[in-house]
């Protein structure tokens, strides 16, 4: 077990969005979180990353309690986060965006930069281009590349396919699989439940801020209720 979310209750000001949610991520796993709009999926990621203080419950990373740490501390512990929107530095080049991802590294990270460029060859080709000029799909690659610069143990992705053309969506999911193969555990929140469950080792279904189901990705895809409610089947 690399990441363990225990009984998390969290929300904004007076209103609780999440109610006693439990979630486990094992080493090297892809965990997909699906559910309707407003189910609290993004809130869960923000709470894990310290952007939101939970009212109750614990976030445990490798047996260390990291509940309530600020994001700039959590990123040093080995979790990286890619927000759904505004996830790049638009006026900076691709290379500079990746350098910013490695900001807290004090070692020579050139090999890591090479690995990221191997993962997204198009980014190497355009490394001097300003990110603001790139297409949505390439921006998403930059955003994930930035988050990967620190060699995180866990990568949190908030709706990476949002706003992308259908063709690009399958491409981005393919790349997420490739990232996972390199040994990074991934927690992904998605509207695109079908694709997200297909690649998931484990899936969670959230509704109204509560976990309603969790099982292997395949089992959830077969599940009649899930199919009816979230897969449009």
């Amino acid at each position, binding site marked *: 077990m690399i990441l363990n979310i225990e009984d998390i209750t969290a929300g904004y000001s007076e209103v609780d969005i999440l109610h006693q949610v439990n979630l486990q991520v094992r080493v090297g796993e892809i965990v997909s979180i699906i559910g309707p709009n407003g189910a609290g999926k993004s809130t869960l990621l923000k709470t894990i*990353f310290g*952007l939101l203080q939970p009212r109750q419950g614990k976030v445990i990373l490798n047996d260390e309690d990291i509940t309530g740490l600020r*994001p*700039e501390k959590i*990123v*040093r512990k080995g979790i990286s*986060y890619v*927000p759904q929107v*505004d*996830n*790049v*530095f*638009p*006026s*900076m080049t691709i290379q*500079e965006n990746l*350098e*910013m*991802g490695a*900001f*807290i590294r004090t070692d020579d990270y050139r090999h890591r930069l090479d690995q990221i460029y191997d993962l997204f060859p198009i980014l190497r080709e355009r490394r001097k281009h300003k990110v*603001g000029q790139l297409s949505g799909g390439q921006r998403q690659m930059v955003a994930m590349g*930035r988050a990967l610069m*620190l060699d995180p143990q866990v990568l949190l992705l908030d709706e990476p396919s949002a706003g992308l053309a259908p063709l690009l969506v399958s491409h981005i999911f393919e790349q997420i699989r490739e990232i996972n193969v390199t040994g990074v555990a991934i927690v992904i929140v998605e509207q695109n439940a079908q694709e997200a469950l297909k690649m998931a080792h484990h899936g969670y279904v959230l509704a109204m801020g509560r976990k309603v189901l969790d099982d292997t990705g395949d089992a959830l895809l077969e599940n009649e209720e899930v199919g009816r409610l979230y897969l449009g089947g």
Partner: protein
Amino acid sequence: MVELFVYGIVLGSIISLGAIGLTLIYGILRFANFAHGDLMTAGAYVALFMVTGPFSWLGIPDHTFGALSFGWRMLLALPVSMVAVGGLGLLFDRIVFRKLRLKGSGVVILAMASLGASFIIRMLVLILWGADYRFYRPGLLRPALELPLGVKIRPDQILILLMVSFLVSVLHLFLQKTKMGKAMRATADNMDLARISGIDTERVIIWTWMIGGALAAAGGILYGIDVQLHAGMGWNFLLPLFAAAILGTIGNMYGALVGGLVIGVAQQVSTAFLLPTYKPAVAFMIMILILIIRPQGIFGGSHS
């Protein structure tokens, strides 16, 4: 006319120094710093204090460099004043702006607080040095060089242009090549993402104030060398500073440089047709025109 253009470039380069700091602070802290002009005043007077006070007591020679109107004392006073005013900006940030920021105050509150800071600086200068016009070297004759096309320019003014070019080049290299410079640009682009990446944005803010204050101080001193010192000098610069920053797209350092030069030239050239007292009105007109026609400035994309 050519001569007015040249004087406009000199004035514009001084405006640029102020406008760059204003635009950097806006880009990162997201508020209009109305105290920025008065940071220029503070810089000019800190240098006056150093030149007439400590450096005189220390026995630093008083002679001038060749045809220039200043010597070692001023050369040493410049960096001292830049650091001091950078520190002054930082001091205001720690005791006023940071507290408001942490409370989540809106931009209007922050801008009003900076207006208060501007009064404090100006009144301090008035209390300490009085309301008279001051010179770094009273009574010094400053002959001009004759350039082709009938342009008369004082050696001081050539040095002002060189000094501004030097400072802007150093800032450019800092922002493009150093880790902290890049972190500043990243923070200006997207502060939340900078934090998520582990960038210490409070440290970035400290650097922003130091740089903005230092450039303002340099601008104030260079204006003092070119013209004279007065407690209201920086306040009078505020309008051209904002016009320059808005013209060059607020938040864009290179835009502020170009904007400053454009405003300076427009102000000086206008004196061929208008009374010099209308100079601030010229800056104001340009600012209003740009806000109506192209509010995102000349370097702004349509998305911003």
